[in-house]
């Protein structure tokens, strides 16, 4: 660990961005830790939610964005529901995750690959289709083989059709993705 030169390391613009994008006022957080206490993913995190909130409060961008926890957040909103200061903590986490992606804090994380696989499927067909998503995801990451163990059971129960249902308006859906991609670039 190193000593943080707090006066120099702080990036108040970063704090303002987080507040603007999430619509939450971080100065109301008094660090009671209730978000950490109730977080089902906490035990797998490398930095706890309340610590991420603290980092954002202080404007420490690296500490707030450069962690695995953002990608493990289950979006279950337990933290938001129990926050005594009515902060939508899950919303802040989502904001930080989105910022982390934009700022290049994440490359090739499996979860992002899964999301991409999922959304590509939606973009192509208008709906998702599990077998396709899985195959795409495994191809992208070389991971997820543990899921294969589940496949026979799912297949046996007829729960995994091999072909996607393509909707009539799939081009319309594809245009949503296209505009989104254009806007981002």
């Amino acid at each position, binding site marked *: 660990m190193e000593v943080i030169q707090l006066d120099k390391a702080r990036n108040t613009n970063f704090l303002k961005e987080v507040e603007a994008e999430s619509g939450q006022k971080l100065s*109301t957080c*008094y*660090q*009671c*830790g*209730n*978000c*950490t*206490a*109730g*977080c089902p993913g*906490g*035990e797998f995190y490398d*930095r*706890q939610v*309340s*610590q991420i909130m603290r980092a954002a409060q202080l404007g420490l961008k690296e500490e707030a964005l450069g962690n695995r926890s953002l990608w493990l957040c289950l979006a279950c909103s*337990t933290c938001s529901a*129990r*926050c*005594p*200061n*009515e902060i939508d903590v899950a919303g802040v986490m989502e904001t930080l995750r989105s910022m982390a992606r934009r700022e290049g804090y994440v490359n090739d994380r499996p979860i992002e690959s899964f999301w991409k696989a999922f959304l590509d499927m939606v973009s192509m067909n208008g709906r998702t289709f599990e077998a396709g998503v899985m195959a795409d995801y495994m191809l992208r990451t070389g991971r997820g083989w543990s899921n294969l163990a589940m496949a026979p059971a799912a297949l046996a129960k007829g729960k995994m059709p091999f072909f996607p249902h393509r909707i009539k308006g799939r081009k319309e859906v594809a245009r949503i993705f296209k505009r989104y991609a254009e806007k981002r670039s």
Partner: protein
Amino acid sequence: MRIGIFVCHCGSNIEATVNTAAVAKKSLEYPDVVFATDTMYTCSEPGQDSIVEAIKEHQLDGVVVASCSPRMHEATFRRTVQRAGINPYMFEMANIREHVSWIGKDKDANTNKSAELVLLASEKLRNNRPLFPQQFDVTKRVLVIGGGVAGIQAALDCADGGIDVVMVEKTATIGGKMAKLDKTFPTIDCSSCVLSPKTVDVSQNEKITLHAYSEIESISGFVGNFTVKIRKKSTYVDWTLCTGCGSCIEKCPSKKNPDAFNEGIGTTTAINIPYPQAIPKKATIYADVCRKLRDGKCGVCAKVCPTGAIKYDMVDEIIEEQVGAVITATGYDQMDWTQLGEYGAGKLPDVVTGLQYERLLSASGPTEGHIKRPSDGLEPKSVVFIQCVGSRDKSIGRPYCSGFCCMYTAKQAILTKDHVPESQSYVFYMDIRAPGKMYDEFTRRAMEEYGTEYIRGRVSTIQPHIRPDGVVGYMVRGADTLLGQPVEIDADLVVLAVGVEGAQGAAQLAEKLRISYDQYGFFMESHPKLKPVETNTAGVYLAGVCQGVKDIPTSVSQGSAAAAKVMALFSKPKLQSDPQIAFVDIKRCIGCGKCITVCPYQAIKEVSFRGAPKAEVVGTVCQGCGLCNATCPQGAIQVAHFTDNQLLAEVNALCQF
């Protein structure tokens, strides 16, 4: 008129953002202004002296001070001008601090605004008239509402000062919350042992009339002369006959009723005396659970009562008392913590409140001082205390700190170790607030000597589970924010430090007393710093937690302070009434009675003047609200110091096309 203007710098408080010299200079242009100056601290002794000198030197007959809020120093300056021989009501203030210098930094705009506010004040002053207070008698008796430790202290001090006291207590016994406590912090002395001598004093002091199991029905009148109606709720027992022998309690067959004195831990009989040292030590029947009163079948207590005190046909009685002052000491109640689903919403039997835990610790409690958890009687080895339950929690609309929970939790952790030496206590806290004498040392003792583990973080949820041995445990899921980790503790018993709010019914009482209260049921003091015991209603004082959270010593201090205020009030042979009240121009009054209709105080009566009906103001009753003034179409009734012409002068000064 010859008006003098004094513009105060208030050090740099005003001067920094207002050009006071320019304001003074400008005001010399105003009608009737013959003198104007700026001064450093107008309220200081030299400042006041300079006003007196200027009045004499320039033959002033009216003064305007432009400084702070009149709510701050109007009384001060009225005395100053009076010293110089001017009627105190020939004085006006322009508030150029709270309303100008402190709320903006634009010096030009502030200077202009200040000059206008001075104009406003001097235009009003030109319409002022000398006013003279009336004198009236005082009933030298005091009503104390609430028989907790603050009310007891206030009553005893007043009685010591020779004042007759009427004490009204809602429940059947005095002692309040303190009577329920086992020990008190930071001395760990026995709560009831400290309190009992005082409650006994109340019952034996011939200056104190105690109405227990009674409530305030209504209060009318004004400072020095209140009329109080008290509802003596039916106890179904003639207390003049009851000796407190307890035979009825022994024989009462309705035994399974929740015990209010024990905070619902344990049960009690339908006829009972709340606890052994209760004052008055008289039995009360609770009609909702009494078999005789509910179903008409039973009557055992009447049969066994040796003095024939049981009266099933007793009804509520309303009595009237005359008093000159009122002290409210109605204390607090715990907030409704059952709205907190994450802590079991009150449905988990071994999740108890701090007050319930006091009863579990108390030798006079349902477990006779042995800590047994309510569900199965198990002696807990692992006890978790959770702080700030319903305190500092904006999400449920309770942003404030309940003040004394940190301390009593430390005390309870210490007592837990005393009772069960092999136990381990954990306290989840956010901050420890222990600023009293020997308080912080006390919390340190809990940690250092008694091994209590303090964990900095809130608890997210309490979830019951079944241990391999079949015993129910409570998984307390929290965070240690210092460690930066979620933590879990498998507890036998969980104690919640539940936040407090004004006592139930506080708002309704405040309406009767015409005092302000906040959204949490705490009464508003007259000034947060300088008048913490007074209210904005003359003659009504506050003591104890009803005004805001405080611990026992502070409640006792405030009880004494309220008593001192009452004694000071009663030390005067007569009281002076505020002359800022309504008066009737009898020539203009047509006797239509609209003022009588709207007056909130029944302070206006119809009289006959040469055969015609006219309105007449009862000076001692009128409070000067001016509602009549705004209602009277011909302006025949005016409220002194805020007459139509005075307000019109202000409007006209500001708005001239």
